[in-house]
């Protein structure tokens, strides 16, 4: 028997006898059609052998280099304390807190996560997280349709991450695009039948957008404004809730989650309390127990699929409890000052790099637009530049496919790396 299943032959015999059958095969007498042949899978490996292969596969990836890729996932510093907490078996090996008496740890952590998101967005209520950024945007699109009682049709900025937009479309929402000029969205002409207006700030190209203009435009046609925000940016940028946004959503990965090739991350969603019944997913709320002791419980469960079935406001069942916990511990360790320092360091380094590139004769795609830590720079041959960077031990930016590279700079990058980046790109021509 394998190491994860405790039974001995004697155990199995005693149990079969108690059940009243003779063999394990008898337990599958009702199964039809039956699989008779063994599964054609590679032979069983010991843990040591399996992990040796994991290391070998990892070695087939380019890793350990400075990364200038962003576009929705950022190479940020993750404090060691996060892994120490999220790796605890009590958190890692539990499930959705259906039994609150023995799930207070996760429930309070979720309550704290919701509080962090509410603080960052200046919106009253947040859910316990959804799968990731694109999923948060898609759920928000459906939410605006329910709240406005309109067909799901949303106006989005061309500055919305194109992958988010694709997921919104997969979820059956019609998308119309707003005018976009100089890296900035023009929300002056919003169609009057949309349920939501979506603006991302900083947008896909790194540019800080005018959320207030988008929310005025949305409200002008009876639609809701959804702001898509990087949580780190909210340490320096005005909170979407103070700019008229009705819903704020985004990707929580920058809050202490490893890149790990795109997931698992966590999506956040926050809104006004008056819209809470249309907020999908789990929500933890405060209450008391029989003895009057403060405690937490999943609440407003009547919105959810296991209670309301076909009439639920979403089919979502998961919340990203462990990754949301990572975000919560990250926010606690950093605090308001630390979060701002992460932003300041990233902004300063990104502006240093942008300046150096311009001094070397390269043009920014949107030279007049305000940006934080990500920008598009025009290069004669982006592919050649990225190849040269990789040859010099640097993972370059995202090839936008139109003669520009989208470059992200985080607090991890050193002046030495930034200077090397400029030098290699300049030499690549």
């Amino acid at each position, binding site marked *: 028997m394998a190491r994860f299943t405790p039974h001995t032959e004697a155990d199995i015999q005693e149990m079969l006898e108690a059940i009243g059958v003779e063999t394990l095969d008898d337990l599958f007498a009702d199964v039809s059609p039956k699989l008779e042949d063994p599964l054609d899978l590679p032979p069983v490996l010991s843990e040591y052998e399996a992990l040796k292969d994991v290391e070998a596969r990892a070695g087939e990836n380019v890793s350990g280099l400075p990364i200038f890729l962003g576009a929705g996932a950022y190479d940020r510093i993750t404090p060691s304390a996060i892994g120490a907490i999220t790796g605890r078996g009590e958190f890692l090996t539990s499930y959705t807190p259906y039994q609150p008496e023995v799930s207070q740890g996760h429930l309070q952590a979720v309550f704290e996560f919701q509080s962090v998101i509410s603080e960052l967005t200046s919106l009253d209520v947040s859910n316990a997280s959804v799968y990731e950024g694109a999923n948060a945007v898609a759920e928000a699109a459906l939410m605006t349709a329910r709240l406005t009682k309109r067909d799901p049709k949303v106006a989005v900025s061309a500055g919305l991450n194109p992958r988010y937009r694709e997921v919104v479309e997969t979820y059956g929402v019609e998308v119309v695009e707003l005018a976009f000029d100089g890296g900035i969205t023009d929300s002056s002409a919003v169609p009057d039948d949309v349920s939501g207006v979506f603006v991302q700030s900083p947008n896909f190209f790194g540019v800080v957008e005018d959320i207030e203009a988008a929310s005025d435009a949305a409200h002008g046609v009876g639609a809701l404004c959804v702001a898509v925000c990087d949580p780190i940016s909210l340490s320096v940028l005005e909170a979407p809730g103070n700019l008229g946004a009705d819903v704020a959503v985004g990707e929580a990965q920058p809050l202490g989650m490893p890149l*790990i090739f795109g997931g698992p991350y966590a999506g956040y969603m926050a809104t006004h309390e008056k819209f809470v019944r249309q907020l999908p997913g789990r929500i933890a709320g405060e209450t008391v127990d029989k003895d009057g002791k403060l405690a937490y419980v999943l609440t407003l*469960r009547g919105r959810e699929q296991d209670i309301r079935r076909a009439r639920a406001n979403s089919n979502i069942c998961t919340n990203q409890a462990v990754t949301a916990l990572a975000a919560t511990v990250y926010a606690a360790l950093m605090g308001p000052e630390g979060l701002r320092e992460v932003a300041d360091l990233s902004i300063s380094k990104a502006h240093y790099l942008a300046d150096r590139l311009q001094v070397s004769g390269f043009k920014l795609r949107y030279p007049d637009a305000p940006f934080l830590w990500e920008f598009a720079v025009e290069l004669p041959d982006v592919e050649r530049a990225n190849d040269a960077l990789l040859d010099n031990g640097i993972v370059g930016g995202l090839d936008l496919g139109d003669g520009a590279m989208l470059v992200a700079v985080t607090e991890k990058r050193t002046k030495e790396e930034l200077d090397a980046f400029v030098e290699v790109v300049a030499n690549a021509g």
Partner: protein
Amino acid sequence: MLGERSLGSLIRNKGREGRRGYTLPKPDVEKTDLKKVLPKKSLRKEQPGLPEVDEPTAIRHYTNLSRKNWGIDTNFYPLGSCTMKHNPRANEAAAAVPGFAGLHPLQPEKGAQGALRVMHELQGFLSEISGLSAVSLQPMAGAQGELTSILMVRRYFEDAGDEGRTTVLVPSTAHGTNPATASMAGFKSLEVGLDEHGCVDVDELRGKVDASTAALMITNPNTCGVYERNIAEIAGVLHEKGAFLYMDGANMNANLGRMRPADATVDIMHFNLHKTFSTPHGGGGPGSGAIACSEALAPFRPDPVVEKTDEGYRFARPEKSIGRVSTFHGNFGVLLKAWNYIRMHGPELRDVTDMAVLNANYVRARLRGAYRIPYDELCKHEVVVQPPKGKKALDVAKGLIDHGYHPPTIYFPLVVKEAMLIEPTETESKETLDDFVGAMLELAESEQEDLEKAPTQAPTRRLDETRAARQLKARW
């Protein structure tokens, strides 16, 4: 908890202005003046009210929170339909390897061959386990796997110009995600009843399947823990009318190496990698809801899938793809763990299923008499029981907590009154099961008023759930 004034002491209340829990590298370039590079009105005026704590305080706070939480590591956790099996720690070690943990999702394919190879091999493993030829690893949870599948079915009919397919059938035992998924994908869901074994009533189904049916969403074994013995016939009824059979794979832990959905002509299914391949559950997520489907539905899979070419592995968009369902490539970290789990089991995955089914049937045999068993025949990986007349599932569940056991799923499936759905999983010993049965038998005999007081040994007593909803407080 000792040392805290109240149970609910929040991290924010444990700090003081000016404290910090992490030090960042010193700046090595000149600081940018935000006022010079950003419009004034975009600047934040008031700082967010986040905790200000040092690292020791944060570690102690969250460590103590964890101690108010039960997991498989601390307690037997027979939560039906959730497959709470032991989580091998090798999976965590695999996901922590820097060559994966630090890999950016937009890293060009040539620099991510190891990751793409893992995905390609996992596609192959899931294909072998299900018998279905095409796989997508994109969905990030079971419910999203369901939605992806039903959206693919929808797109299939749109592509075929068949506009009359408006209904998705769902058995009365289905998980709530099934009808919710059907609605979300734009279908009307219609319920199908059960026969005397707790299985889909084939005659009733035959009467309900017509040219408006897009699919039936079946869970096998179903949520009563019973194998859908007519599954091949059910598939035939659907196929005759041009509809698809979708299988919810939440209960695949009962099928590994014993039945392959494709052999019963299932057209499309999802896996819960966090359940069957133990990746783990993490308090409700993250998970993965990878899907497998037949050739007919393969062109509609989400973007991207992984292909093997002479030059190496690459991402590809299936010809008639429904589009993306996740920003990047699904929950890669979960996929990596599932790949590792399958490699540590190989063809011996069948033993996983055999032991899971043995354990559930053993519990069924031992509880017979003291508990009512509505479908008292061979069960698969889980068994549904009812407390003795006059007792409530909720009270027995809370009583179990005082015995040190996480309660089973209760009040589900909805078709069984006072249902207690017990899924022991394969990783529990006979001694654990015997002790659990002992506690269940004792609770069956307990005085009602004692049961109503439970739990008294947990971090809290029973909670006022009405107050939480009526006086919503969901943040500090």
